[in-house]
């Protein structure tokens, strides 16, 4: 970890923002073109492609600076993803059928591709077992010290 002082953290934040701000603008333009009339699946695919490139850039930043995603970044990512899913559901419920047919499949695939990108990162960064352990809350809910013994299943 090189985040040993406030300036290092600010520098990293600046770099992440410098990557995401233009990427978000480009992705917004492509996705907007894709979901409006006259657009299509390729535009939506290109928009999600830019988002995945931005994510790859963020992962590279983490690798070069020997840092991880901060809690704020993770929360923002999850909220944005949740908003995307809700927007997709609302579109399915209220939009005209022509729009639903045109938008739902590419946007759904795009959202799935984001999940795949995150899982791929976790697997590459922490290994399959390490990636699973980051979400494995059941193993952590036994507070007795004996639960940490290897033959009782504790592997921490």
């Amino acid at each position, binding site marked *: 970890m090189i985040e040993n002082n406030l300036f290092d953290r*600010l520098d990293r934040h*600046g770099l992440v923002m410098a990557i995401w701000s233009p990427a978000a*603008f*480009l992705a917004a333009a492509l996705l907007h073109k894709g979901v409006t009339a006259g657009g299509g699946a390729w535009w939506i695919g290109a928009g999600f492609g830019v988002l995945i490139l931005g994510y790859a850039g963020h992962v590279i930043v983490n690798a070069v600076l020997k840092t991880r995603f901060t809690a704020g970044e993770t929360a923002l990512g999850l909220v944005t993803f949740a908003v995307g899913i809700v927007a997709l559901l609302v579109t399915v419920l209220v939009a005209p059928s022509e729009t639903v047919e045109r938008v739902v499949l590419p946007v759904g695939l795009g959202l799935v591709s984001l999940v795949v990108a995150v899982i791929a990162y976790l697997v590459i960064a922490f290994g399959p077992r390490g990636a699973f352990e980051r979400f494995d809350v059941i193993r952590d809910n036994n507070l007795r010290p004996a639960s940490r013994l290897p033959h009782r299943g504790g592997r921490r």
Partner: protein
Amino acid sequence: MTPLLLSLLVLVALYGLYFAARTARVGGPPGEFADGGANLPGWAVMFLLPGLAVAGLGVERHFTLVGRFGLQASHVSAGLVLVAIAALLVWNRLWMATRVAGLFTPGEALGRFYDSVALRVVVMGLTVLFALPFAGHILSSVSVLLEAATEGLIPRAAGVWMIAIALAIPAIVGGWRATIMTLAMYSVLLALLMPGLTVLTEITATGPGFPAQSIGVADGILWDRIPGVLQNSAGIGKAMPPGGIFTAAAISSSAVALLGIVFSPAVLYLGQTAPAGRGLGVSTVWLLAGLVAGGFVLGGPVLAARMSDGPLALAGSLFEVEPLAGAGLLLLMMIGGLLAVSFFVTGGSILITRELVLTYLFPKLGARQARLGHRISLGLAFFFVALSASFAPLICAVGASVALPLSVQLLPAVLGLTFLRVISRGGVMAGLSIGCLIVVFTEPLGLILFESLFVELPWGRWPLTIHSAAWGLAFNLAFVLLSSAATLRSPDRFQRDRLHDAVEAALPPRQTGGRGLLWSLMLLWGFLAYGPGAILGNSFFSEPIFTDRSADLGVPSLWVWQILFWLLGVLLVWWFAYRVGLGRTSAERIKPITLGEPEKRRTPDWLAAGLERVVKKAS
């Protein structure tokens, strides 16, 4: 489009304010306000250097020229490769000299190295030239575009003041570090918007564009050819050379003028305050020579061909296809200008305050008071640039025309500091004087003044289609070499040798083989890419010299030539950066020295007396 464009501009302004506030809240030592502790974020410097080179080229100006003159004007953008090589050569050694001898500004470095106050004054003059007329002219141009884009909703003068305030507040709050971090994002935006919008325009456009269609230039202009090596023309304003102004000589001399951005005091200061590391290599090889130069060589003619009716017309058609793309095109045209204004005014103000106010006027100020001084002078600098841009745009334009060519005249002085220890103070001053005079009298500044006051001159701007920067530099170098040869054993040589020895001792061990091959290739590449050999590209691929038949490429031969020599140029920059080792800086082996006598930080008597008189009168 107006609300969307304004929203984007507001977001860009808020971005700067956000980082300025974050930087101020971190609360570093007050002394680091002006230089970021000489340890700016490496990534920010890495991204910013290509953005500054593009700002020197001028995004809107470049597209306009390519739209008017075709591929001959587009050839100038390959000069970005030359900028990358110059940045590598200069920044690496200047960075070392800064750390070795404690020379923290360009004026201090050149002034103390040559032991010349006059040189410090020259550097300060150049700083003002970039901070006021150069930045003012760009600010005025951006505001003209904003006025047209908003259909008069924001008049030019209002635009000037709004942009100046939006750029001033982050600089005043966050200082050098926050400004550089913000401008680095502008650079990334520029680098993404340029290829992104080119591709988007081509996909969504209705008719065929370049290269299927020719670039719509005026009659008599050779859009797909370089009109000769040199033209016997008195210069722009007196006679128009047939076929277009961008001869091989004009292209190479324009590339030389583009080097002025590297030698401008604020850019040299950026190099001095950069951190150690490999960022310089990445920045020059992959971002500047690779991505940006490639983007302009490949995408420049394509986008310019679509802009035959101007950027506003293209933005309008893009807006109908995708509103964000239309607004994004206008943002692309403006963001380079905003970057240049913010950088040169902030850098200029900081340099003037450090060199003049804190060194001579108030040398006893503490760190907190010095920071306040910087903030006040930043406010004043942005005020004056907005004032001059709004009320004297013509004077700004005339002054801006000499900024880059005059900056290039520092080349021998900087080369003396970084590589050639034989270059003496007398040589530098003699060369600088003659070079600057020639630049002024081959640009509107001197021509207008002289012709208004005395008689009509027989030449205009760029006589013989050679840019003023090259005219000045040719005489400058001749004088420098002659004078330096005559003063090889002068007593001031001792201090220069000390610095060079200390810098060379601090350099990491590197491969020395292949230098002859590198410089031979460099000369050959320069001859064919920019020099007289560039006209071979006019027909080299369409009418090959080894056969009577002509080849139907489907693209102009000159474009293929430009792409080929851009790629070879990237290879050369890579060689300089990684094989020669100029792309990496390290402080590991540095042993600091004191150059000459310790600097006397004392207010000159005449200044002290003047200040006292003012204070007494006020009290």
